């Protein structure tokens, strides 16, 4: 040892084991990657869904996954890595069985998201970007997830956990930890991060029919319209155009 060990300038470099060449990708996954490529006029368009598939099989963006994507698409591993490191949903370190997100963009932050994130760190015993030693949970600070009317919002495996409170957040983790069935407030029952990634790769899991049509905040205006009898204007019917009784609206 020279006493001059290299220290990475980027925090993100820590925890990634670049010597780990393990992979679960086999013939079936490669066949599925080819199916994805066939959906597009130009195969490279398949890269994002292919990387989602890599995560569903390997639990992370594995070096082997990068290599296979590059070979199938005829591009360099540098090009694949360039994409894999650009998008926040791709994880170089293994995510947990359940990937927990807490939105802390402004509306959620102010309404209680900051409180929830601190609480989740304490509850799970990990910092954002980390995974629990048992591999059960990973935690992420999210940017806006398009559910501001349900603030503060959490996500589990990219399913909505709307209108959260400290009590509900604790119960959510306890239920997941105990293996009880948990439902998204506006989606299906919670499966796992890896299974969610497979859906994002374009392989449906058959759960589209679970969950409600809409959540309560989505219906806030519509309920008032129904109570008041408010509707969009009724288009003139042929009879009205021909001199029939004018529309009362």
């Amino acid at each position, binding site marked *: 040892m020279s006493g001059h060990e290299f220290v990475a300038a980027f925090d993100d470099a820590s925890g990634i084991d670049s010597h780990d060449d393990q992979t679960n990708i086999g013939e079936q996954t490669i066949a599925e990657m080819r199916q994805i490529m066939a959906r597009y006029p130009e195969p490279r368009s398949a890269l994002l869904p292919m990387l989602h598939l890599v995560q569903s099989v390997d639990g992370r963006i594995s070096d082997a996954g990068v290599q296979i994507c590059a070979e199938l698409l005829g591009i360099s591993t540098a090009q694949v890595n360039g994409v894999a490191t650009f998008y926040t949903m791709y994880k170089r370190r293994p995510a947990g069985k359940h990937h927990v997100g807490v939105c802390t963009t402004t*509306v959620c932050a102010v309404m209680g998201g900051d409180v929830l994130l601190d609480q989740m760190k304490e509850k799970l015993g990990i910092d954002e970007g980390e995974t629990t030693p048992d591999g059960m949970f990973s935690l992420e600070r999210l940017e806006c997830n398009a559910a501001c009317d349900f603030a503060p919002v959490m996500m589990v495996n990219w399913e909505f956990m709307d209108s959260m409170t400290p009590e509900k957040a604790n119960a959510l983790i306890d239920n997941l930890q105990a293996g009880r069935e948990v439902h998204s407030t506006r989606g299906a029952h919670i499966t796992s991060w890896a299974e969610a990634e497979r859906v994002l790769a*374009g392989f449906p899991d058959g759960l589209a029919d679970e969950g409600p049509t809409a959540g309560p905040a989505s219906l806030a205006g519509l309920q008032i*319209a129904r109570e008041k009898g408010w509707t969009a204007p009724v288009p003139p019917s042929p009879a009205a155009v021909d001199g029939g009784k004018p529309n009362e609206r």
Partner: protein
Amino acid sequence: MSVDVLTPTLSDNWDQPDAWKIANYVARGGYEAARKAVGMDPDAIIGLVKDSGLRGRGGAGFPTGVKWSFIPQANPNPKYLVINCDESEPGTCKDVPMLMATPHTLVEGVIISSFAVRAHHAFIYVRGEVLHVIRRLQKAVADAYEAGYLGKGIFGTDYDLDVVVHAGAGAYICGEETALLDSLEGRRGQPRLRPPFPAVAGLYASPTVVNNAESIASVPAIVAKGAAWYKTMGTEKSAGSTLYSVSGHVKRPGQYEAPLGTTYRTLLDLAGGIRAGHQLKFFTPGGSSTPILTPDQLDVKLDYEGVAAAGSILGTKALQTFDETVSVVRTTLRWTEFYKHESCGKCTPCREGSWWLVQTLRNIEQGKGQEGDVEKMLDLCDNVSMKSFCTLADGFVANITSSIKYFREEFEAGYHTPAWELFPYEKSVYFPYERERITVSEGAGE
């Protein structure tokens, strides 16, 4: 003819059981507009959408029909339609509930719009972090194929159309149309220099229309009921019905579909007003990239012209609402951190400017700002604004400069006092739906 305060059009079936299923959509007259459209002259559809006055609902407000007419039909390359469902602008939460409740409205709009621009391949680009929306869209597209509404010779005509649901992977910038196209090509989502515009050289360098989900979902009703009907809603230059998204310190946050030109005073009343015992401090009219407005502007007409005249932008009609407990330094910092995180890094003013502004704002939040920091931020904003390929940087500049314009003293207080001492953060915490909902929802639809 007087028009009602709320005009549910896009949202009219959201309270129906299992509205996302194709049978229920068809039972309410769904796909009749698409069936009618594929029997029309494509140029007549473009004309109809132009006449309706429909303008882009993704923020820019460009007339949808005019955009379609820019597609050079003489170009021998394939034409593409790409739907932007990368809803990520802070405050914006309209497309997600729409696509979850009624994905077939979008699919029907895609059929009509693709036929109008002579595209045989359409892509629905959805942000990846909304799993159930993607499930519902995948199923809607699959069911539409099975019904013969997509695929070869749809509706018994000789017109072919393929639709792919494509999940993104986490990048706000992919809501910018040229970054979206790069992402859809399997690259890093970074904006392109224009010209050429996507209409001439978009996806795979071919003529491409990129439209917001709400814009395309508005098309079936226009085809079914006519351009004149659509224009009975809204104002002269901002026609139609639209989804206003109210969030923050109001009693009933949510989606309110109303004619364009509705004031925030009206929407705030419908939302039950500000939470009990508090007053409105400021709001955004159209997401975090639009300059903030104050209670003095409650009567501004929320249409493209009205909001512009008030010094802001209609944007995505995302009304984020904050009461008097909220520190403007805190909100400005948090939004700027968002833009720093989401800057793609391609253009130096945006990448470095957001980085520097976050550092300055963090100091101010902690009460460690230095005399002159406000002037320095305004100077930085001036150097960043309008100097990048896309408008991401203009978004954070709009937020910072408008926040300083209305609440300069709060930023200057940060030269000596932390924001959380002036505005204790715990006082802003609010759980509006706490009593109504618990963690576990009602079960499956069937």
